[in-house]
């Protein structure tokens, strides 16, 4: 038993040495967890921002100009005034996401309580902006109308108001979200590449076969890779969380960082096991590379980090329960933003442990066979 632990320790140490010896890899890791996260987090626009908008003002009255002036950065770019025939080609080119068309005699009709109509054209291929942007435009136009109505002594008020409070992220700052999602993506990618590719490399160079002739078991080899590469990623996460996310990006963290790190450790167990599993399936590095993409891409895009999970088709939601990232995203948001405790996140923790164990055991059972079948 003691010898087992020693073997695991020394083999893991070897992995760490190997990584230290590779300045390019070290540089890449450092980059992804610092600069990479910073870029990704700050690139994400704050709610709707700098949306390109144009106005066709056929009224050119104080009211219509007033509406035009109500759109300004950071939410919208300054509206450009265009003519009606320019609308279609400009939208075809994708110059504007929104085009407002204010009809002739608009102000007169408003004052006469004839309820004229403003047309909002939305480029609906820009999904993320189309809906929310439209909401904001409605609100802005309505506000302008309301204050215009008040100043013109028109009777108009709302019989009930709604007061919206956004919890955990009052201003809906996207940087907070972007930073953590990027961290999660990087953790998964790195964990799988480091273990999986390292295993294939050992197989291609014959070192793995050599180890198997020595008093070392596949279990020890696998655990050594899990702990050493897991440790590397853990350190990177800790640095990223304290210096970049909390430091530079000023993201407030509600919950316990310790609990988050515990969860990260579980996630690393699952994703490194997944790396080993993929490596035992692939016969050479190019195959592994494609497998990696096949697994990583859906995991990144469908884990709930990019779009809400509840809106995905049932089948995909169910399949994604098998992906470690889904649970990682879930508990990260719960802990970091909502300050949730273990009583809330125990289920994703447990599921990560189960996924990791299953992948680990499957890889273990086929370890020897996969070493023999190198091509």
């Amino acid at each position, binding site marked *: 038993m003691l010898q087992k632990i020693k*073997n695991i320790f020394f083999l893991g140490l*070897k992995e760490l040495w190997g990584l230290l010896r*590779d300045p*390019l*890899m070290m540089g*890449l890791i450092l*980059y992804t967890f610092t600069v990479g996260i910073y870029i990704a987090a*700050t*690139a994400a*626009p704050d709610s709707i921002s*700098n*949306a390109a908008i144009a106005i066709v003002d056929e009224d050119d009255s104080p009211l219509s100009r007033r509406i035009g002036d109500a759109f300004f950065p950071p939410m919208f770019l300054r509206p450009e005034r265009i003519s009606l025939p320019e609308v279609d080609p400009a939208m*075809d080119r*994708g110059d504007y*996401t929104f085009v407002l068309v204010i009809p002739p005699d608009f102000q007169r009709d408003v004052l006469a309580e004839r309820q004229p*109509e*403003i047309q909002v*054209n939305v480029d*609906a291929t*820009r*999904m993320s902006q189309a*809906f*929310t942007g439209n909401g904001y435009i*409605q609100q802005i136009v309505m506000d302008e*109308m309301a204050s215009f109505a008040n100043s013109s002594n028109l009777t108009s*008020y709302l*019989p*009930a108001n*709604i*007061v919206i409070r956004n*919890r*955990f992220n009052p201003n809906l700052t996207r940087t907070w979200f972007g930073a953590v999602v990027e961290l999660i993506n990087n953790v998964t*990618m790195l964990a799988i*590449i480091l273990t999986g*590719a390292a295993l*294939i*490399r050992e197989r291609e*160079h*014959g070192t793995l*076969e050599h180890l*198997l*002739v*020595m*008093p070392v078991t596949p279990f020890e080899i696998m655990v050594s890779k899990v702990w050493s590469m897991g440790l590397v990623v853990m350190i990177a996460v800790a640095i990223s969380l304290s210096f970049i996310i909390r430091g530079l990006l000023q993201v407030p963290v509600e919950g316990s960082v310790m609990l988050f790190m515990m969860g990260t450790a579980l996630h690393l167990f699952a994703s490194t096991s997944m790396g080993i599993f993929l490596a035992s399936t692939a016969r*050479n*590095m190019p195959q592994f590379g*494609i497998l990696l993409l096949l697994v*990583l*891409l859906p995991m*990144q895009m469908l884990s709930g980090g*990019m*779009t*809400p999970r*509840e*809106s*995905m*088709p049932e089948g*995909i939601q169910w399949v994604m329960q098998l992906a470690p990232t889904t649970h990682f995203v*879930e508990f990260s948001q719960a802990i970091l933003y*909502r300050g949730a405790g273990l009583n809330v996140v125990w289920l994703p923790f447990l599921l990560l442990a189960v996924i990791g164990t299953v992948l680990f055991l499957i890889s273990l059972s086929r370890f020897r066979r996969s070493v023999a079948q190198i091509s």
Partner: protein
Amino acid sequence: MTTPQTGNIQSGDPIVHAADISLRYGKTLALNKVSLDIPPRRMVGLIGPDGVGKSSLLSLVTGAHAMQDGTLIVLGGDMRSKAHRTKVCPRIAYMPQGLGKNLYFTLTVEENLQFFARLFGHNASERRRRIDRLTKSTGLFPFLNRPAGKLSGGMKQKLGLCCALIHDPDLLVLDEPTTGVDPLARRQFWELIDNVRAEQPQMGVVVATAYMDEAQRFDWLIAMDDGKILDTGTPAQLLEKTGSSTLEAAFIRLLPEAKRAGHKDIVVPPLTQEDENDIAIEAKGLTRRFGSFTAVDNVSFRIRRGEIFGFLGSNGCGKTTTMKMLTGLLPPSDGEAWLFGKSVDANDIKVRQQLGYMTQAFSLYTELNVRQNLQLYARLFRIPESEIGTRIDEMLKRFDLTGVAGEYPGSLPLGIKQRLSLAAAVIHGPQILILDEPTSGVDPVARDSFWELIIELSRRDKVTIFITTHFMNEAERCDRISMMHAGKSLACDTPAALVKERGTETLEEAFIDYLVEADPLPPPDPVQIAPPPPATEEKPAKSWHFPSIFNFQRWYSCCWRENLELLRDPIRATLALFGSMLLMLVMGFGISMDVEDLTFAVLDRDQTVLSQNYALNISGSRYFIEKPPLLDYDDLDLRMRSGDISMAVELPPGFGRMLEQGLSPDIGIWIDGAMPMRAETIQGYVQGMHSKWLIEKVSQRTDWGGTIMPANLETRFRYNPDVKSLPAMVPAVIPILLMMIPAVLAALAVVREKEMGSIINLYVTPLSRAEFLLGKQMPYVLFSSFSVLLLLVMAVTVFDVPIKGSVLTLLLALLLYCIVSTGIGLLASSVTNSQIAVMFLTMIGTMLPATQFCGLINPVTTLEGVGRFIGNIYPTTHMLLVSRGVFNKALHFADLYGPIISLAITVPIVLGLGIILQKKQAS
């Protein structure tokens, strides 16, 4: 063989002139101010211990490695000059160290030869003629269709030689060509060289070798030690100078005093065996089949404790497979093996503790230095921590590794790596040593000292030794040897008995006798060698007269070869094709911006008809799903923290009454802001439903006194009227998939060559970087174009997203885009050397920008900072514009030429950078 001429160098200009050349790798000085003239038209041998700079010298001479200090003139020009290297490259042929290092293992013999012949610009009929002639004279002709990886070691080397000779070089450089090759194949190899030289007497040959019996045949020898030249001259001159009878002895005498010290002739004391039945290794009917191929066929032997048992045979005859079965790495198909009477069990740790194993190819860690490697192995073999230090020092001394203890194996020459492997195999004092060609590539002095250790272990410590070797003098030292051929054991006895049985003079002859008898195939066909090439006049048309910047045929050659490799790995291609289709399915359906099925709960503190009606209004929409009502604020807090609900609606006490009285009650809405995008959508929904509810109520109850808005807003969602995700996502997913998969494939294709060593062909053939990279790129561009078609068909059929605009425009843009994405892979490959690093780099360089900065979800105009900048220049941005334009907006070329031109401009930038950053020489 030409008889050794006089040692007079002045018979013609030297083929190689070196003055004060030095070469260092990091801190190691490999060549120390070497000055040398190599005479033309000779067979020149480079002899010396391991790691004295032989290979370094050869890699400089061939231009494979960049020059550092000194002057080097090869074939009349300065090797520093790029123009000269380009000009002279086709006239030099280089076979690097290691079995088949410059070959492509998945390609057949024919294909390998075709590749090299094309590189040198021969036309189809000339290629056929040369390939036939070379393969017939080397005996490879019957194996033209066999993949190079499945050839035996000797055949690999012959093929390597054929590839080197395909273009009639003026200088042939061979780096230890016969290391790891059995005696019969070696003999055939040198006969082949002699024949070639007889045909082309002008050709100079420079060979580095560890076999002194081979050096005996050379015209002129260069003895090297420690990065310096010890002496030069004909073998006879060297013998005379040192007063020795054999070259092996002469060589040892040439060494400086310090290195010679302790060297003595090997004497093997007889094996004293008290107990004939003390069996260490036993095999009975051991058989191993791979599919229909039988690698080991019914092999049996019994090896006594302390015996040195030699395994002889050509490469690929099943020796290594037998060893793997003995160590438990491979389960036998039939038969059984026992170690110390216990059946071999892969899971038996105790037996493995007593085993020392050395693989044929170097299998220690290149990322650990020599001492760290030994440390790791000592620990894994459970040597007590306190003894490890002394044990390692002992090993370092014993194997003469003290000087390189801090070096990394990757930079060490073959011979020293072998010694390190040996040290690692014996560090724990095993009971059984299984050694697969432990002395291949090791110099004579080191070999002898190694054998001293073997003998000592065997005779003093009773360690049983199972060894394979190609050196006959080593085989003679074994107690018994088994001769293997094609999976069968031909004979097994003491060396003396075997020689006696065959009636030959030496063991080598006996061995060859056995092999020739066993193999019905006559070795080389002597008739074919003789006729001189009929088309010698064709010579002026050789490739070096082609302009060397970009040669279409060489480009095609690379392209053709890469294509073959891709086809030989159908799993990879299928994975990539079906993978992208699968990804498109998952992502097209999965990435949904239609935020639906949001969970909410109501904290109704009014409980009137109106308040319940308000809640019903929300739960009735398709966007929301109602959860059990909230009890109080604590409940709200807990359920929102746990993610159970994303929104809470709080209706204040007296809501209905206040509404009736026109008091404008406030409705509280709490939204989980952890996911900003979702929160915003919820806000939008709630506001909309709120006003709709009010308008509805107001129109029913005029007594409330409110009026409706002074103006209406009518929204037209264009291009995608239902604001569905699918029509917007599908055209966007295609460019993303076509960025990542082709980039990773292309990047790995190049770096794989770097890691496996065949990149040497770029260094030493006339191949230019552009030809090499663009040639490798082409198959992946074609491949991606094919997947483009599949994905488009899928978009239209499976997803039912019609292509409204110009299909041709879309195809043109996608083709350009595939060239760019594979180009990005090449760019990544030019700055990395390991497959792991390039994979990581390509992922970072494609996945993040393509999915986040290029307008997939957030339009580029809304991005900020560096992300915005990347988004503006990244090709995926432009491709997305075209793709969505054609798919959703029914646009044509006239509307989209802007982004297409941007893509077209990206092509030369990405490819140009990739080509410039790729190295043409090792450095």
